[in-house]
């Protein structure tokens, strides 16, 4: 199963693209080697018998938690822009979209 399958460098590059992380050529090679070792280790979970076992997404049995919709003071003036690395006037400056 997964233990015998190796992830090629092209697939590492593809996943990194999906995750929006640029990798250098050298990093692609290093990551591919490390990923294969890590995933081989992860594949030991294949042998666990989980038939009819439901997944635990979350440890608390909470559903639909609501709170009162109260009005709080919000961040004012130029405060929201304070951490913006690039801005113009009262706007965040985005890179080219298309």
């Amino acid at each position, binding site marked *: *199963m*997964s233990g015998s399958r190796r*992830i090629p460098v092209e697939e*590492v590059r593809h*996943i*990194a*693209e*999906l*995750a*929006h*992380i*640029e*990798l*250098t050529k050298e*990093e692609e090679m290093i*990551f591919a080697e*490390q*990923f294969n*070792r*890590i*995933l081989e*280790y*992860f594949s*030991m*979970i*294949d042998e*666990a018998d*989980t038939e009819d*076992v*439901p*997944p*635990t*997404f*979350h*440890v*608390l049995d*909470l559903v639909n*938690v609501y*709170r*009162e919709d109260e009005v709080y003071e919000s*961040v004012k003036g130029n*405060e*929201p822009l*304070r*951490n*913006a*690395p*690039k801005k113009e006037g009262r706007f*965040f400056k*985005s*890179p*080219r*979209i*298309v």
Partner: protein
Amino acid sequence: MEEFSLSRIYEMTAAELPDKVRNQEISAQEYLHSILERIGYVDEKVHAYVTIAREEAVAGAREIDEKARRGEKLGPLAGVVVAVKDNICTKGIRTTCSSRMLENFVPPYDATVIERLKASDAIIIGKTNMDEFAMGSTTETSYFGATRNPWNLDKVPGGSSGGSAAAVIAEEATVALGSDTGGSIRCPASYCSDVGLKPTYGLVSRYGLISYANSLEQIGPITRTVRDCALLLSVISGHDSRDSTSLRIPRKNYLKYLIGDIKGLRIGLPKEFFGEGVEEDVKEPVLEAVGKLEELGASCYEASIPAMRYVLPAYYIIAMSEASSNLARYDGLRYGYRDENDEGNFDEVFSRNRRIGFGAEVRRRIILGTYALSAGYFEQYYLKALKIRTLIRRDFERVFKDADVVIGPTMPLLPFNIGERIDDPLKLYMCDILTVPANLTGYPALSVPSGFRRGLPVGMQIIGKPFDEGTLLRVAYTFEQNTRYNEFRPPL
């Protein structure tokens, strides 16, 4: 109580200080300056802090002294100096997650735990070093450089809350806050000889904690004594409507559990916690500690958690998957690292910012998490890991039918050398084997100093039933009062 010479008042605990500040025997300013002086003397060696908020702290201490002078009521932590892990938001004080990505990020708001500390008249002295985005067990992946173990400066302090744990035992703060996703409070507490508690999931608000793996993590205390741990937990715990996973349960004063009596306590010892891969130097002192607890009236029996075999891969798959989602927000647009070079389209700029802003381990986990969640692998990795999470819960539920607490070592190894494991991610992940079960199950777990081997601290881990922090504190307190390992200090 012993007298403190003026120059060494930084040694005081959170349980001792507030009354003295109230009675104006010691001023909050005097105490703060003693700690600042201590930081000036030792932090060059230890490197526990990323940021010292000297001005804010001095202003806070002055205000507390004025309140005391006017005879106003002071909170339960009056004058207590708190070091805060740098992934917990502090209004006006930069919060970096020890990452280049957030090097200049100044939060516009306080985390709920910070609001509660301030309302208790505690003083935030600064932000402590950590593994980048809490991903690590050694504090070596910090963009700002490694923290060193105060007991031996060549060794790692544990992680990811290594700065908080080192600051506390080096007496660079009275107490500290850490966060624990897979052991990040307990591991450094064990390696630095502190008391460290990961509360039950849902007991402490995560509002303002910068997310890494949100279904696993909790904020908790790192202290020198069990009493301080109970005191700090009493302040920070309790429902918060801004965290939808915070439970509506009445607030407690955990100090009431500090009675030195464990007669009739039933301890489960899972054989997997003392098995292969756990060093003799760790096993021995922990078994001695268990012997001490038996002497004090507890009874032990051997238990088994068969799913321990799968606990580590299951944990890492879940943590990485959640990380890939939680860290998707860092695009360098509204905040965070933005490269000078804006060439290319949005995706290209975004991907470049994330390559330069994130360190190697963070990128590794985001990419692997993306892989585990991607079509075709979701069931094989993520869903399977969640099913194993159920198996582990069932194992623990079964053990807790007969046991009040489960005990084992906190870490399988003594603190190792800086640089020794960092180049091999898998070897590093193995260190978390004994701490991750409490995160996967959500159960509370505490590490308490239980001796030394080769001059390095060993921590005993006590795991409890959900929301039974009281029993953990009672056991740890009884042990501490009968052994006094908490009185040792590193030779700095």
